[in-house]
């Protein structure tokens, strides 16, 4: 009897650790701009979104254990690339998500490819990520410069804005956005009268705006984002640009920018987005939960994209029961159709592009807004199969026809 109970205890002790050994450990890194000009549209809000995604996925029920680390890439490619390297090499991170800076995203794209890990880009815009720089380890979520150009750009040209002048953020994102929008303007019969490249995070746009004013273009295309867009629009008012008859085209405007500008300044701005907090009940419910973690803020499409991307990643890892082979996980993500409360049903293409519809919004006038955050009215819906660049035009080595 004594021997039997000892054997039972020993067996129990031996059996217990193996229960832990079955849990698959996954580590996710949210790399974003935590303190700079993109910190509102990504930053801590992206971290909150990732936390919600992990919570909703319920790792324990799938026999998984998910850890989250966060990092600030300071909008510098060397910082981002070093951090990615360190995370992958030393800290055993399996997947990096967000990175709202195209230059940094391109750098991290290379590191993820080299180390065979997963990179889900929610924040960065350059369409090169599914173009010449496409990778079997990377999925480009939320939006890209081609979609923006074909949303906002096309809409503006069609309503009479046929001469353009670009004020471009002088790095990967700005150049990609200017390039893609120029193509749309020209294809629709418009003309680009000139452009000026502005260093990222420039405080004073006045001399660039003066050049835009001198060009007499009907539309001043702002190929920049975040703090840069806000400054351009605010300082434009100082020099009487809009009263002089020219219009600003915010090619990438987030709800956080509209918030900063205020409806009085931002009213009438036309913008393209793939997610708006007030569009569906599911969005509203999620926003409430997100705001519990980020009081006083409004979620952007980037942060919603982080939630959606992390959710689908975890589903793919659960289906594969392994996270170490980045290529395999991404292949599984492309194989499985996506479905989450925020973006609904969608797919990921062979070039890594996540497909979902895009929406053309117009910013409401102050008197049209009934409650805090009620900023947009829907002008048009661009169906999913038209919203993004056709694969044949990608020049992506992964796609056999390119």
């Amino acid at each position, binding site marked *: 009897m004594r021997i039997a109970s000892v054997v039972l205890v020993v067996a129990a002790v031996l059996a217990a650790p193996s229960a832990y050994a079955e849990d698959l450990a996954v580590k996710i890194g949210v790399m974003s701009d935590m303190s700079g000009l993109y910190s509102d549209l990504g930053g801590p809000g992206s971290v909150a979104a990732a936390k919600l995604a992990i919570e909703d996925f319920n790792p324990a029920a799938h026999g998984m254990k998910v850890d989250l680390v966060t990092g600030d890439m*300071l909008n510098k490619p060397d910082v981002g690339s070093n951090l990615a390297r360190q995370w992958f090499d030393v800290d055993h991170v399996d997947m990096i998500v967000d990175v709202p800076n195209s230059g940094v995203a391109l750098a991290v794209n290379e590191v993820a490819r080299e180390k065979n890990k997963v990179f889900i880009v929610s924040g960065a815009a350059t369409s090169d990520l599914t173009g010449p720089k496409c990778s079997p380890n990377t999925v480009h979520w939320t939006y890209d410069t081609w979609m923006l150009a074909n949303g906002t750009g096309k809409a503006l040209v069609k309503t009479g804005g046929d001469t353009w002048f670009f004020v471009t953020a002088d790095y990967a994102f700005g150049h990609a956005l200017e390039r893609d929008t120029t193509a749309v303007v020209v294809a629709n019969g418009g003309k680009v009268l000139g452009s000026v490249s502005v260093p990222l995070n420039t405080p004073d746009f006045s001399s660039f705006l*003066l050049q835009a004013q001198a060009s007499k273009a009907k539309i001043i295309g702002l190929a920049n984002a975040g703090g840069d867009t806000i400054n351009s629009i605010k300082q434009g008012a100082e*020099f009487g640009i809009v009263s002089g008859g020219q219009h600003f085209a915010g090619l990438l405007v987030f709800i956080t920018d509209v918030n900063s500008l205020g409806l009085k300044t931002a009213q009438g701005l036309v913008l393209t987005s793939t997610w708006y907090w007030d569009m569906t009940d599911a969005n509203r419910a999620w926003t409430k939960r997100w705001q519990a973690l980020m009081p006083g803020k409004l979620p952007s499409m980037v942060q919603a994209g982080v939630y959606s991307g992390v959710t689908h990643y975890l589903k793919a890892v659960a289906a594969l029961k392994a996270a170490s082979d980045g290529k395999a996980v991404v292949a599984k993500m492309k194989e499985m159709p996506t479905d989450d409360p925020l973006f609904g049903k969608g797919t990921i293409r062979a070039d890594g592009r996540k497909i979902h519809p895009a929406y053309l919004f117009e910013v409401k006038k102050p008197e049209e807004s009934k409650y805090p955050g009620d900023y947009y009215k829907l002008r048009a819906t661009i169906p999913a199969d038209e919203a993004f660049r056709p694969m044949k035009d990608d020049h992506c080595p992964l796609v056999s026809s390119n």
Partner: protein
Amino acid sequence: MFEIFGIPSQALFGQLLLGLINGSFYALLSLGLAVIFGMLNIINFTHGAQYMMGAFAAYMLLQYLGLNYWVALIVVPILVGITGIVIERLFLKRIQNLDHLYGLILTFGLALIIEGLFRNYYGSSGQPYQIPDELRGGRNLGFMFLPNYRAWVIAASLVVCFGTWFAIERTRLGSYLRAATENPTLVRAFGINVPRMVTLTYGFGVALAALAGVMAAPIYNVSPQMGSDIIIVVFAVVVIGGMGSIMGAILTGFALGIVEGLTKVFFPEASNTVIFAIMILVLLVRPAGLFGRGV
């Protein structure tokens, strides 16, 4: 609207105006540096950070105490000037007998600390500061559009710069200052409290920087790195002008601002670097600087 050298007048005068505004800030800041260098023989690398503190102080006064721009113009230079006095007493006095390069390194370190603290608190993107209502809007002069606030900046800087020059070169207090620079021991023997004059001079130089910061707040976004971006250009201005004279610093500041503005019109890619290129030229031809005395 007429054209000069193929450039529409609105563009040309617009850029000249912006250049004059930049020049106002260069003049104010290089004036402060020249005053401090004259008395203490140190290059105040912290000058840029103190300019930034001035802008942030104006922002904070508005944000937390609801005090407007006009109050800030008076209060902020005094407040930041006091922090300057504290720095001088705590740090600069101790190293005044060492090689001057240590002064540069110390003030560089202080600049890093100040910028780092503000970055920690406010992030690295800018804080908005509105143009005061009295100065909003602008005037269409026909050949250009003149925003009221920018006109004010130029006018105010001219007044402050020439006021300072007058105080130093033409008043009795100024003459004590200049004498103490040449021969502190002798001046002390006359019963004048030289250390206190040194401290107050440093405080005054810092106050000038802070004043420039307040004036800059509505135009340039209030951000922690605004100081370091501008201070290096001001160094070049100071090298070009030569550290010898107050008037030299003022004139060089305004002149270089105008040159920068003109370059933006005719040769935009070079506009950032033209001041440095001029510095190289001046160094090759006249190493002491345009208004400098000896090497």
